[in-house]
């Protein structure tokens, strides 16, 4: 049985392209805000996870790598990863690091810190990334935000690829902060409804 393909089944291309564009010009990282704002808006307005369920290109990318390219061991995920404390804990940690990134951006905006042309992987490893930016292209804080946001995206992709390989293809979706957050919003919105 051949399944019908929808336009949104191609969004993995956008997600893949996004990662590549960050190597070309870091300012493309700003586009990643779409993947933050859209799922939140959908869950707040519609009260569902249609973003995860249909549109998310990142989830599709992991499916593709794991299923079509057979890069996944397809093993069950350890129970602690899907436990509430880990999922909510990871969301909390992720948010703290996200606000820290915004703070660094603000420091550059305020002029008390200078632009760092690096991408930080796994919140620890600073990778030189100056080839993707030429000084003076935009105001420094806007570039700092791009470097920071791309760090977030690259880090989550790296973790996602790791768990894609170790467990089932879309294991990232079990602890993805965006997925957890939108599920929490849906829970709050639909409270009391059968």
């Amino acid at each position: 049985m051949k399944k019908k393909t929808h336009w949104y089944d191609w969004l993995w291309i956008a997600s893949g392209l996004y990662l590549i564009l960050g190597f070309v010009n870091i300012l493309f990282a700003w586009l990643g805000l779409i993947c933050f704002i859209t799922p939140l808006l959908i869950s707040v307005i519609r009260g569902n996870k249609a973003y995860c369920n249909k549109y998310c290109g990142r989830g599709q990318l992991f499916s593709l790598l794991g299923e079509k390219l057979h890069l996944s061991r397809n093993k069950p995920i350890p129970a602690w990863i899907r436990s509430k404390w880990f999922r909510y804990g990871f969301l909390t940690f992720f948010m703290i690091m996200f606000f820290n990134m915004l703070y660094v951006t603000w420091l550059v905006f305020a002029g008390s810190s200078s632009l760092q042309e690096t991408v930080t992987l796994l919140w620890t490893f600073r990778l030189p990334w100056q080839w993707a930016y030429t000084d003076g292209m935009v105001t420094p804080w806007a570039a700092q935000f791009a470097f920071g946001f791309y760090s977030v995206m690259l880090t989550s992709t790296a973790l996602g690829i790791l768990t894609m390989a170790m467990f089932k293809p879309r294991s990232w979706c079990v602890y993805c902060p965006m997925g957890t957050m939108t599920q929490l919003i849906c829970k709050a919105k639909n409270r009391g409804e059968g």
Partner: protein
Amino acid sequence: MVKKLAKVSQKECVACGCCMKVCPRKAISIPRGVYAVIDPKLCVGCGMCAKTCPADVISMISREAEA
């Protein structure tokens, strides 16, 4: 006669929708974004959803046990 039926552990479901995408019968929906719901009238017990679920929260149960 269909003997098996997919059952979601709703407490542990992360509502990612992987099951929904692979179900050949469109038997799965996630109406409120909190957990997946399987329509027993449409499910043919193929087990695709259970195999794909990244959180491993779908089990295949026998129809008799359900009834």
